[in-house]
């Protein structure tokens, strides 16, 4: 140590005394000592600390003594970069420990549920796809499953449409998990993982764009089926994707799985066990990382998931590291499902194999086609309604402007979104518009668990906890 002796002794005594001047007769110390540490001088702003070096222990001890019963309330967000969007966390801190944490939401509320009550049942897809913007195809699917259940046409949805739905959802799951893992990397300090995650996600979005025409807000899945069949060349691109992705995911794992900093940040923090998950309604990777293999694709299959071979990855560490591993494993399983979908779609196809329900009163008559200016109207259909059949024109007009009527009643449909159980409670009064549509978004529910995960822990672990919950504020606020 190179510190002067008087500082050493001074430090030792200051811990017990708020008056450094009382330290024995051996010390002579002027009030103007430029290297002096904490003094009792009043500069008109209360107690002033001089921090000059080598005296941190002293400063900390004096501060501890004075402020042990003081709470520090910190607003983290709504513009904090690590809160995944406009999430605001109100932290009550005691030093570095979080004693209380309250999530505040609502900054992205857009009234999607209310707006859907003023549009036809088919137009509703365009709204709900914008909720959880990382998993738009799940939003669309759960809404369409609810509408189909109300109409009682679940069994009439063509097989090919179901396979395409599963394919799109699993592609979307990979894209969503890559964002979750990538942003988690960014937030705990691994920028490269974020760049890799975004780069791989881009490949997924390219496929979604190829198939639906858009990278997000697809409105691709419609009540009764999907809006358009796969374009030519899509299957080859999908096969290529399934071929290269394991290696690219392996690159992320190679960076992240054994990274000491990541382990230190994500292990044994933000603990939430199965009991906590159940009482707080937490589902998805968080629940599966707590050891419960609950996946609606297995337990309550929809869209024909029971006919695919895949496993439900489970970990039992209850911490962000386990949640990361579950997400990585789920991507591998999604690739398995995608390759099975590709096999089914590439089999011999009969001439009449629709992707939309045959009932012309529900399925939109226009089969979109690829035009010179992108995806749009079908020239064949336009020719038919505009110059061949007056009845077809009337029918088209009525279906598109008036929409179809849905029998009165209520249903609840649920799918396993990348974040957990995504539910749709749809109520009809028998009209052409929903009476009420409510979405049980997993992010909204899982966000309640952030208090349980963080209170009593360190403030730095809040970042890891929020990243492992992977909330998407578009879905939270709707």
């Amino acid at each position, binding site marked *: 140590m190179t510190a002067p002796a008087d500082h050493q002794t001074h430090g030792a005594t200051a811990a017990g005394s708020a008056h450094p001047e009382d330290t024995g007769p051996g010390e002579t110390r002027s009030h103007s000592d430029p290297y002096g540490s904490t003094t009792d001088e009043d500069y008109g702003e209360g107690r002033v600390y001089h921090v000059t070096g080598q005296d941190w222990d002293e400063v900390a001890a004096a501060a501890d003594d004075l402020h042990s019963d003081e709470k520090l309330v910190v607003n983290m967000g709504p513009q904090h970069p690590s809160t995944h969007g406009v999430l605001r966390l109100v932290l009550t801190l005691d030093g570095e420990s979080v004693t209380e944490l309250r999530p505040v939401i*609502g900054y992205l509320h857009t009234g999607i549920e209310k707006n859907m009550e003023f549009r036809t049942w088919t137009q509703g897809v365009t709204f709900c796809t914008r909720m959880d913007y990382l998993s738009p195809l799940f939003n669309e699917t759960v809404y369409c499953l609810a509408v189909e259940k109300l109409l009682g046409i679940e069994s009439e949805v063509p097989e090919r449409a179901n396979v395409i739905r599963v394919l799109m959802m699993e592609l979307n799951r990979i894209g969503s998990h890559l964002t979750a893992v990538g942003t988690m990397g960014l937030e705990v300090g691994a920028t490269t993982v974020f760049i890799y995650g975004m780069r791989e996600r881009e490949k997924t979005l390219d496929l979604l764009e190829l198939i639906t025409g858009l990278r997000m807000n697809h409105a691709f899945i419609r009540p009764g089926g999907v809006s358009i069949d796969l374009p030519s060349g899509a299957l080859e691109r999908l096969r290529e994707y399934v071929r290269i992705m394991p290696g690219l995911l392996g690159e992320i794992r190679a960076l992240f799985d054994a990274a000491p900093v990541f382990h230190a940040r994500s292990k044994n923090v933000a603990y939430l066990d199965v009991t906590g998950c159940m009482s707080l309604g937490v589902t998805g990777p968080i629940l599966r990382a707590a050891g419960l293999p609950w996946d609606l694709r297995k337990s309550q299959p929809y869209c024909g998931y029971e006919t695919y071979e895949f496993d439900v990855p489970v970990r039992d560490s209850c911490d962000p590291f386990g949640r990361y591993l579950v997400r990585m494993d789920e991507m591998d399983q999604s690739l398995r499902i995608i390759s099975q979908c590709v096999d089914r779609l590439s089999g011999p196809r009969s001439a009449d194999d629709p992707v939309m329900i045959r009932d012309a009163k529900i399925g939109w008559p226009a089969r979109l086609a690829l035009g010179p200016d992108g995806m749009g109207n079908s020239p064949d259909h336009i020719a038919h309604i505009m110059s061949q059949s007056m009845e077809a024109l009337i029918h088209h007009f009525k279906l598109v402007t008036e929409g179809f009527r849905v029998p009165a009643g209520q249903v609840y449909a649920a799918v396993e979104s990348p974040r957990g159980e995504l539910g749709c*409670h749809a109520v009809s009064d028998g009209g052409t518009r929903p009476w009420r549509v409510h979405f049980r978004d997993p992010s909204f529910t899982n966000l309640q668990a952030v208090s349980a995960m963080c209170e009593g822990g360190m403030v730095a672990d809040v970042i890891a906890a929020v990243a492992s919950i992977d909330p998407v504020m578009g879905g939270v606020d709707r």
Partner: protein
Amino acid sequence: MTEPDSNRQPAVPDPAELAGRERLTEPVVRTGMFGATGTGDTSGYGGLQVRRPPRVPSPRPYGSYFDEIADQLAHALGAAGSSFGAAVEQVIVANGDLTFYVRREHLLAVARQLRDDPKLRFELCLGVSGVHYPAEAGTELHAVYHLLSITHNRRLRVEVTAPDADPHIPSLVSVYPTCDFHERETWDFFGVIFDGHPALTRIEMPDDWRGHPQRKDYPLGGVPVEYRGATIPPPDERRSYE
């Protein structure tokens, strides 16, 4: 019992007539052929009034695992000093779902049994969805709970109603802590007051917002949009086919 007499009026009215009466008490959901207003209805059905089908209680057996749930809940409620008939107003099986319409004063007791009884074990509550039916006098506000039993892989819907004049429903946070956010959301959007909630404050709307936006008497709002010389009215003023 008296001897059956073919000349007398039957004690039980004709079920078809009863169904007709029931239907006539329901709110009108559509008038005319298309439900549109503002233009004449030339279809000849301009005077048509379509009423909402009444909510008819489902008869036993309910099918699937639904009977088991009802029996077990009746058993559990009986053991707890209540009864199924007192707690559950109506049982409806529709669209493959089982719905219990629970009287609000019994909601907590029913939820506790649904969660704790080993043969019911609905561990997971999937939240509250509010629905506003302004035409239903006395039961305008509905709170719909979806429950999931992971142990038995079953689903159940519990529906509770409250009048607009007294919008109180007991909070389920003590049984299902996950209802915290969901009940705040339903208060925010529908004005249902959940008695016993630890901090019933707005969650999506700003704290000083007036009104409850997802109620049917709350307008959607919006401004007309001009596009290439044509003006498009806001969504709630456009031609609609109810």
